[in-house]
């Protein structure tokens, strides 16, 4: 009877741990039991050495070469994306600022118009300096301004793209 045959039962419970031992994935107690067993069992010790060989070889696999200019292509893509993101932020900022400006101008003119007209400027039956009417008119103006701004910004972006 060989050493290993005499240890078969013990080996069966240990052998499943051997690949994990090579991967450094055993719990401390499991590792201790495995080492203890391996000291007494030449066959398992040998098997553990083989798995360790796999572990070492896997850490030294041939390294794949980086494709030509992958770094440069990635950098160019990211720079383009940075520029696009900056454009989007700028567009949003500009639209916000223009909307705010339009509302401020609208409100200022409302005050001025109320002072000049004494609070009443009736055209076709509607009092234009009433807050609701004036707000509705201002809203239309704001959206028109935003649309014009969006068109202008889109044109500018297209020009920049063509230039690039």
């Amino acid at each position, binding site marked *: 009877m060989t050493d*290993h045959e005499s240890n*078969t039962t013990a*080996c*069966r419970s240990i*052998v*499943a741990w051997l*690949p*994990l031992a*090579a*991967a*450094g*994935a055993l719990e401390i107690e499991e590792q201790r039991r495995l080492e203890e067993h391996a000291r007494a*069992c030449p*066959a*398992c010790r*040998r*098997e553990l050495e*083989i*798995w360790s*060989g*796999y*572990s070492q*070889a*896997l*850490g*030294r*696999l*041939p*390294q*794949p070469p*980086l*494709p030509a200019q*992958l*770094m440069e*292509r*990635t*950098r160019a*893509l*990211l*720079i383009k*994306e*940075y520029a696009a993101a900056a454009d989007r932020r700028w567009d949003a900022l500009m639209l916000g600022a223009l909307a705010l400006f339009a509302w401020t101008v609208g409100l200022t003119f409302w005050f001025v118009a109320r002072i000049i007209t004494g609070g009443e400027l009736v055209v076709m039956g509607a009092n234009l300096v009433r807050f609701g009417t004036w707000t509705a008119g201002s809203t239309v103006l704001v959206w028109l301004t935003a649309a014009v701004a969006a068109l202008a910004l889109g044109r500018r972006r297209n020009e920049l793209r063509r230039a690039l």
Partner: protein
Amino acid sequence: MILAATMNPEAFSGAQEAIARMRRGDPDALTAVISRYQHRLYRYLLRLVREPAAADDLFQQTWLRVMEKIGRYDASRNFESWLFSVAHNLAIDSWRGKRGESLNDAGDSAEPPSERLPSGDPDALEQLLDFERGAALAVCMLELPAIHREVLTLRFEEDMKLEQIAEVAGIPLSTVKSRLRRALDGLRAAMDARFPGRRA
């Protein structure tokens, strides 16, 4: 060498600084971070998807996604794990898109590895010690399911801890262990099948 650079405190603080600048929207910092991780990330993607063109595409997509999401990156997390998990998720999406299946589908439900008892026969790997062992292993690794290739490369090439692998792959620690075991067992079976009884 890579590990040495990672463990070097100066290199580490340099990387942290670059990541912090990247979060503030500095494109030069992003370039520095890409330079630092390019070889490892590409290797990981190539091991995962096997096709250089797909790995190349995923590499670029990963950095685009990193740029988009860097504002939401929790600096208390390990950047490396976060970066590789971004790449992992993109690879899964790409896999689903191309084949209508998940990267996780293949391999995990495979038969448990044979409980190989130690034998007196010489091992195929040992016989190949002086004969392109690494190249042979790399070839055999390609035969494994993607999820097994992934855990092997993360554990042995990227030298990640099990907890990091779990974070990257989005799986429990116990699954990492079972995948590692199956992957190693599969690799050894592939080596034995490909190089039976070969002596150095």
